[in-house]
C-alpha cells in the first residue's frame, strides 16, 4: 500500500489501561499498522489536539487522522471532547469513532447528534470486536497487510 496512508495517526482516548492495550492489539491483529497515540482522559486529548501545555510543538504533536474516543472518562468525558472537536474548524474534519460499552440507544443517538462518524460497542466476545475494527480499517482505507 501507499506510504502516505501509513502516516495517518490514530489517537486512542480511553481511561482504562486494559481497554487501550486490547484495542491496540486488536487493531494490529486486524491489520492496522498505523501509529497509535494513546490518551488517558478527555482533558489530555483536548490539550494535545488544541496544542496546549506540553503539546505546543506541532512537530512533536502531529494531528491524528482518526479519533477513537471512549465515552465514560474522568475529568472530561467523550461527549465533551467530541463536541469541542466538532466545534473547532481545524479539527472538525478528523473522523471520530465513539467507543461505547453498551448499545444504549440514547447514548448512540447523542453521539450522532454531536457529529460522531460512527460508533463501536466494546464487546465482551473478542472475535466480534476484531471484526468491527477490521471494518473500521476498511472504512478508512488505512489497512496494510504485512508483506
Amino acid at each position, binding site marked *: 500500500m501507499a506510504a502516505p496512508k501509513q502516516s495517518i495517526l490514530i489517537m486512542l482516548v480511553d481511561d*482504562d489501561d486494559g*481497554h487501550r492495550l486490547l484495542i491496540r492489539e486488536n487493531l494490529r491483529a486486524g491489520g492496522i499498522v498505523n501509529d497509535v497515540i494513546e490518551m488517558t482522559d478527555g482533558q489530555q486529548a483536548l490539550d494535545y489536539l488544541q496544542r496546549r501545555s506540553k503539546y505546543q510543538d506541532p512537530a512533536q504533536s502531529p494531528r491524528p487522522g482518526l479519533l477513537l474516543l471512549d465515552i*465514560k472518562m474522568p475529568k472530561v468525558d467523550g461527549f465533551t471532547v467530541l463536541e469541542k472537536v466538532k466545534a473547532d474548524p481545524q479539527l472538525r474534519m478528523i473522523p471520530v469513532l465513539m467507543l461505547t460499552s453498551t448499545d444504549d440507544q440514547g447514548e448512540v443517538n447523542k453521539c450522532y447528534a454531536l457529529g460522531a462518524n460512527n460508533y463501536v460497542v466494546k464487546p*465482551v466476545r473478542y472475535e466480534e470486536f476484531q471484526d468491527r475494527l477490521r471494518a473500521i480499517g476498511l472504512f478508512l482505507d488505512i489497512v496494510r497487510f504485512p508483506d
Partner: protein
Amino acid sequence: MKWSLKLKTLLLVTTLVVVVATILTVVNINRQRDLLFRNLERLTGVLAQNLAFNSEYGVLTGNREALQDLVDGVMRESTVACAAVMDRDHAILASAVRPGMEPFVQDALKLEMTAAQPLRRYLRHSGAAVYVVQHPVTLARRQRWSAEGALFSVPGNSSEETIGAAVVALSTTPLIASLEEVQQTTVTLTGLSVLIAWLLSIILVNLLTKPLQRLKAATHEVAAGNLEVRLEGGPHDEVGDLTRAFNQMVHEVRQARNRIEESNRQLEATAKELTSLNQEMEDLLRVASHDLRAPLINIQGFTKRLEPIMADTLRLLEQAAGSSADAGLRGGIEALRGQVQTRFAESIRFISKGVEKMDSLLTSLLAVSRVSRKADPVQPNDLNEVVEDVLAVFDHQLKDRSIEVIRHPLPSDVACRRNEINQVFSNLISNAINYMGPVDRRYIEIGSTERPDEVECYVRDTGIGIGDEDQDRIFNMFTRLQAVDVPGEGVGLAYVKKILRSHGGKLWVHSKQGQGSTFFFTLPRHRTFAMAGKG
C-alpha cells in the same frame, strides 16, 4: 314559579290583611247602611204620624190654611221631599214639594188609602228614591176632645174613623251621599291599613329572612371554597340555631379539608420520594451495569490473549519432552504439559463462560433499567400484528417441539409502546416453549377479553406449571424455577412486569404444578400513562 321565601311571606301576610280588612269594611258598611235606612224610615214615620194627628182638625173642618201651615212646618225638615194632606177622596187639601221631586208626589198621592195602618213604601224614579209614609188621619171618638187636646193626643185608641191621609216622603239622596262618604272613608282607611300592613310585613319579613339571606350568601362562599366564613350572632330562634349549625358545619368541613390537605401533602412527598428513589435505583442499575462491563471486557480480552500463548507453551513443552534424554526431566515436563492442557484450558473456559454469563445478566439489567426511557412512542397498535411478529421469531422452535398455537382475535387498537409489548409476548411465549410439559397435545393459546376500561390478554400453555410456593417469586428479579434446566437470566418476568406497570397495566398468573400455566396481563384503555412510567 320560583318565588323567594321573602316574597311568599309578604304575599301571605298582605293577603291576610286585605281579606280581613275587606270583610270588616263590608260588614261595617252594611251595618251603617241598615242603621241609616232604619233612621230614615223611623223619621218619615214619625213625621207622617205627627202630620196626620195634627191634621185631624183641619181635615174635619176643611181648614186648608191651617193644614198648609202644618205641611210647611214638616217641610222645614230639610230631607223631606214632599208632604201633603188629603181628604178621604184623595183630594189634596194642602201640599208642598221640594223642587225636582214632583214625579214622586204624583206617585205618592196615587197610593191607595188604607184604613188604620200607615202605608210605607219606597218609590224610585230615574235613579233617585224617596221613602213615603201615608198615615191615615183618623177621627178619634174620645170622651174629652178639643182642638188643643188633639195636638197632644196619642194614636191607637179604639173605634176610629179615617177621614183623610197625611203623606210624607223623605229623599234618600242625602242618605246615599252620606253612605258614599262613609264608604269613601272606609276605603281610604282600608287602603291605609293595607299600606301600613305591607310596610310592617316588609320589616317583619326582612327580620325573618335577613339571617337566611346571610346564610345563603355564606353557603355560596363555602361552595366557592372559602372555608373561613363565620356568621356572627343570629336570632334566638330556629334561624339562629341554623346559623350556629352552619358555623359548626363549616368548622368541621374546614378541619376535614385541612386533614385531607395534610395527608395529600404527605402523599405527595412520599410519591416524590418514591419517584426519586425509583429514579435513583434505575440510575444505579444503569450505571452499575454500564460500569461493570468495563472490567468484564478486560477479563475476557486478557483471557483470550492467553490462548495463543498456551498453545505455544504446549507445543514447546511437547518438543522439550521429546528432546529430553533425562527420563526424570521428561516425566516432569510431561506432567507440567498435562496440567497446562487440563487446568489451564479448563480455567480459561470457565472464565470465558463466567464472563459471558455476567455480560448476559448485565445486558438484561440494562434492558430493565431502560423500560420507559426508550424513544418508543405510545400509539395505537394492532396486538394481532405484534403476536404475528413474535410467533415468526419462534416459528422454528415451535415446529421443532411440535407445539400447536391457538390464536383468538386480539384488539387492534391498543395504545402502547410496540417494542415493549412485543417483548411482553416474546417473553411469555418463550417461557411457554421452554417450560412445555411432557403431554401428548402441546399447545399455546393466546386470547383476550375486552372490558370498557382495559384489555386483558392471556397466554395459556400445557407446560409443567408453577407450584403455589413459586407463584409470587417468579416475578422477582433473577428468580428462576430451580428444577428446570432452561436458558435465561431469570429477568424475563420482572422485565415484563416492569413494562406492563409502565403502561399502567398488571401481570399475574394462574397455574398448578403439572397442569400448565396461564399468564394474564392488562393494558388500560383510553388513558395516558406517560406518568406511570416514571412512578
